[in-house]
C-alpha cells in the first residue's frame, strides 16, 4: 500500500454503485462549476469598466429565476433517488447472510463468527458471501468503517446496529473507527481479510477448537436458568422462543413488534419493556448480569431455534400459525 492512492480500492458489492453515483455527482458538479465560473469570468471581463460605457439597469427575469430554480431540482431528485436506493438496500440485509457479532470498546474491535472463532481488530470474511454485522459497543459510540467496501455504520452502546456487505475482491483492507471515541480513536483500526471460500474454511478450521456461537448461547441459556421458564413445551412460564425471530409478535398492550436482534436484546435486558401478549411480566432482567459476548451468544442461540430444532422448541409451536422457518431473501428486520 505504499503509493498514494487517489481512489479507494473497490472490494464489495457496494463499491460500484457508490462510485457510480459519486462520479455522477462529480460530473454534474464539474459541469455546474465550469458553467458558473465560466460565466463569472466571461461576464466580469466582457463587462469590465470601460471609459464612457455606462452600466445598464436590469430588473431581473422571472423566466430565468424559475428556470434556474427548477432545473437543479431534477438533478437533486436524481441524487436523492440514487442515494436512497443504495442506502435502503444497505439497511436491509438478506436473511441468509452469515452473521458476525461485533463488539466495540475503547479502543478495539472484537468479532465473533457464528462458527465460533473470535478475532480482535481483524475480520476474516469469505469472498462472495453475504455477511451481516450485528454490532454494539461497550462504552462510547464508535463507527465501523471499511473504505474499500464503501460502508460505515456507527456502533452504539446499549443496542445493536446492523450492516451488511458482500466482499468481491480477495485482499486485506483497512478497518477504521470513524466516530471519535477518545484518546486512541485513530489507533482503533484493523483489517478486513477477504479470502476465497476454501481458504476461508481452512482459516475457520485452523483456529483453536472453537464452539459455535449458538452453542455457547445454548449453554448459557441453560446455565442462566432461561430454560426453566422457556421450556421446550408449552408448560413454561415464558413464551416459546423457537421460530420467533423475523416475525411479528403480539404484545400485551395491543401493539405488535417485529422480532429482530434489538428486540431480543431488549427482551433479555429489559423484559418489562415489551411484554408478550398472554404472559405475565415475571422474567427477571439480566442487565448487568451477562456480558455483551454472552448476550450475543444468547441472541444467536434464540435466533437459531426453529420450531423443529429440538432443544427449547421440542414440542409443537404453541401459538397460532408460524410461517415457513426462513425466507430466502428480502428483509429480515
Amino acid at each position: 500500500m505504499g503509493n498514494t492512492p487517489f481512489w479507494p480500492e473497490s472490494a464489495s458489492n457496494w463499491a460500484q454503485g457508490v462510485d457510480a453515483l459519486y462520479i455522477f455527482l462529480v460530473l454534474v458538479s464539474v459541469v455546474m462549476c465550469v458553467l458558473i465560473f465560466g460565466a463569472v469570468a466571461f461576464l466580469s471581463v466582457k463587462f469590465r469598466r470601460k471609459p464612457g460605457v455606462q452600466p445598464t439597469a436590469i430588473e431581473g427575469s422571472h423566466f430565468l429565476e424559475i428556470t434556474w430554480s427548477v432545473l437543479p431540482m431534477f438533478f437533486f431528485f436524481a441524487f436523492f433517488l440514487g442515494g436512497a436506493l443504495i442506502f435502503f438496500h444497505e439497511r436491509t440485509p438478506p436473511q441468509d447472510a452469515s452473521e458476525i457479532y461485533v463488539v466495540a470498546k475503547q479502543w478495539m474491535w472484537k468479532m465473533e463468527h457464528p462458527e465460533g472463532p473470535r478475532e480482535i481488530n481483524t475480520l476474516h470474511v469469505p469472498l462472495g458471501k453475504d455477511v451481516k454485522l450485528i454490532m454494539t459497543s461497550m462504552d462510547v459510540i464508535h463507527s465501523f468503517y471499511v473504505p474499500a467496501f464503501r460502508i460505515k455504520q456507527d456502533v452504539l452502546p446499549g443496542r445493536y446496529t446492523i450492516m451488511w456487505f458482500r466482499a468481491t475482491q480477495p485482499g486485506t483492507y483497512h478497518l477504521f473507527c470513524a466516530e471519535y471515541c477518545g484518546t486512541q480513536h485513530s489507533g482503533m483500526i484493523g483489517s478486513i481479510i477477504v479470502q476465497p471460500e476454501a481458504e476461508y474454511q481452512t482459516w475457520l478450521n485452523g483456529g483453536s477448537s472453537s464452539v459455535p456461537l449458538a452453542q455457547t448461547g445454548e449453554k448459557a441459556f441453560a446455565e442462566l436458568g432461561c430454560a426453566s421458564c422457556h421450556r421446550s413445551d408449552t408448560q413454561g412460564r415464558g413464551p416459546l422462543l423457537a421460530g420467533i425471530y423475523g416475525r411479528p409478535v403480539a404484545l400485551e398492550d395491543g401493539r405488535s413488534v417485529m422480532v429482530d436482534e434489538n428486540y431480543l436484546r431488549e427482551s433479555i435486558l429489559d423484559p418489562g419493556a415489551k411484554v408478550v401478549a398472554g404472559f405475565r411480566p415475571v422474567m427477571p432482567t439480566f442487565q448487568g448480569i451477562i456480558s455483551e459476548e454472552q448476550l450475543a451468544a444468547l441472541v444467536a442461540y434464540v435466533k437459531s431455534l426453529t420450531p423443529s430444532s429440538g432443544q427449547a422448541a421440542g414440542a409443537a409451536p404453541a401459538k397460532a400459525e408460524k410461517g415457513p422457518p426462513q425466507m430466502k431473501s428480502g428483509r429480515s428486520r
Partner: protein
Amino acid sequence: MATAVLPPQQRTNYLNAEHGVKSWLLTVDHKRIAILYMLSITFFFFIGGIYALLIRLELLTPAGDLVQADTYNRLFTGHGIVMVFFFLIPVVPAILGNFLVPLMIGAKDLAFPRINLLSWYLYVIAGALMLHVIITGGVDTGWTFYTPYSTAFASPKVIEAGLAAFINGFSSIFTGLNFIVTIHRMRAPGMTWSRLPLFIWAHYATSLVMVLGTPVIAITLVLLVLERVFHLGIFDPKLGGDPLLFQHLFWFYSHPAVYIMILPSMGIISELIACFSRKRIFGFNFVALSSVAIAVLGFLVWAHHMFVAGMSVYAALIFSFLTFFIGVPSAIKVFNWTATMYKGSVTYETPMLYAFGFLGLFTIGGLTGLFLATLGVDIHVTDTYFVVAHFHYVMVGGVVMAYLGGLHFWWPKITGRMYPESMGKLAALIGFVGFNLTFFPQFILGYVGMPRRYYQYPPEFQVLNVLSTAGATILGIGYLFPLVYLLWSLRYGEVAGDNPWNAAGLEWKTSSPPPTFNFDVDPVVDFEAYNYDELKEIPVER
C-alpha cells in the same frame, strides 16, 4: 479618491467623540461595540488559527509524533469550538452587522443598545471561560460534544466548555433579537421592505435562526452539563437514555447555525457585487426572499449529520430528501450574483476579488454539501476528510472570504482610511491559492477513506496531507497580511472620504467615520436599493 474632506481626526465622529477606556467599555454606541467585537473576535480567530496550524503540523507525518494523542484531540476540539462559536458565528453579524444595520436602515442605533453591550460582555465572559479551559488543559470531545463520550469519559473540562458555549449562545440570541426588532421598528421614513439592502435581508434571516435555534442548543448544553454532574441519564444508554437524542438536539441548532454563518456573508456578497458591477442586484426580490427561505428550510434538515448514527431508515430518507431543497435558494443566489454582472461595469478592487473567491469556493462547498446529502455517498464519506473539506470550503472559503471582502469594503467607513489596494489584492490572491491547496486535497483524502479526527494515519495518505499542510502555511500568511496592513492603514492610510466607492447604500451618505448618532440629519429614504443607474460613474480608476 481623496475628495476634499478633513482627515478623520479633525471631525467629531464616533471614534473620537469620547475618550478613555471607560468610554469604550461602557459605550452603547453600536459602532463602538462593533469595534469591541472586532478586537475580541479577531483575537479568537488567531487562537483558532494557531490551533489549525498545530493540527496541520501534526498531520505532516503519518505517525503521531509532534503531539500526544490526547493533545491532538484537544487541538481539534479547541479549534472547532473556538472557530465555530467564538469566531464564525459572531464574525459577520456582530462586527459588520452591528456596525452597519442601523446605518443601512437610517437608524440612530440598534433597538436595545444596552442589550447590545450586554451581548458583547456575554461574549467576553464566555470567551474568557473558554480561554481558561484552553489554558488549563482543554477539552477533548470534538466540537460536537457527542454523548456518552462527553458525559461519561471525556475530561471534566467539558462542563466549563459547555457553559462557555451556553453563555456565548445568549450573546448570539440577544444579537439576533436586537436585529429583528431594529429592522422592524427603527427604519428611517421611506425605508420600505423592498428598499432594504440585501445585507439587511440576510441579517434578518440570520437573526431568525439565532432566535429560534440558539435556545435549543442552550438547553441541550444545560442538560449535557447536568448529565455530566448528576448523571441524569437523559443521554446515557447505560441509564436508559438515547445518545441520538443529544445528536438531534445538537444538530437542531448546529445545522441552522451553519446558515447563521453563511447568510450574513451572502448579504456582504450581494453588496459587493452590486457595487463593483455598478448595478442593482439581478432578481432582487428572489435574492432577498431566498435568504428567508434558507433560514426556514435550514430547520428541516438537521439529521443529515446522523445518517450513519443509527437513526431510523425512514428518518434518514426524509432528511436526505429535505436537505436537497436547501440547494434551490442557494442556487438562486449564485445565479443571480453571476447575472448581476451582465451589462454591468465591473472593476476588480480587493473586495470584489474576495467576492469572486467566495462565489467559486462557496459553490464548490455547496455542491459537495449535496454529495453529503446523498445517502449512499454520505455513508462512505461521512466522518472522513471529505466532510472536513466540505465545511472548510463553505466556512473558510465562503464566510471568511466574504468577511474579509466586507471588511475591506467598509474599512473606509469604519476607520475613515483606505487600506493599501495592491497589498489587499496580493493578500486575497495568496489566501485563495493557499486555501485551495489546503482543502482541495482533503476531498480526495476523504473519498480514499481517511477518517477525520485522526492524529496518526496509514502512510499512503501522507502525500495529500503534506500538500494540505503546505497550503495551510500559505493560507496563514494570507491572513497575516491584512492584519498588518489594515493596522498600518489606521495611521498611514489615505483619507477615505464619505463614499470612496461611490456606492449606493444609506451608510455611504453619512460621513466616514460616522458621527455618534450616525446621521447629522435624520435621513429620509426616497430611492430604491442599489440605484446605481442614478449615481454617476466614478471618474477615475482607483
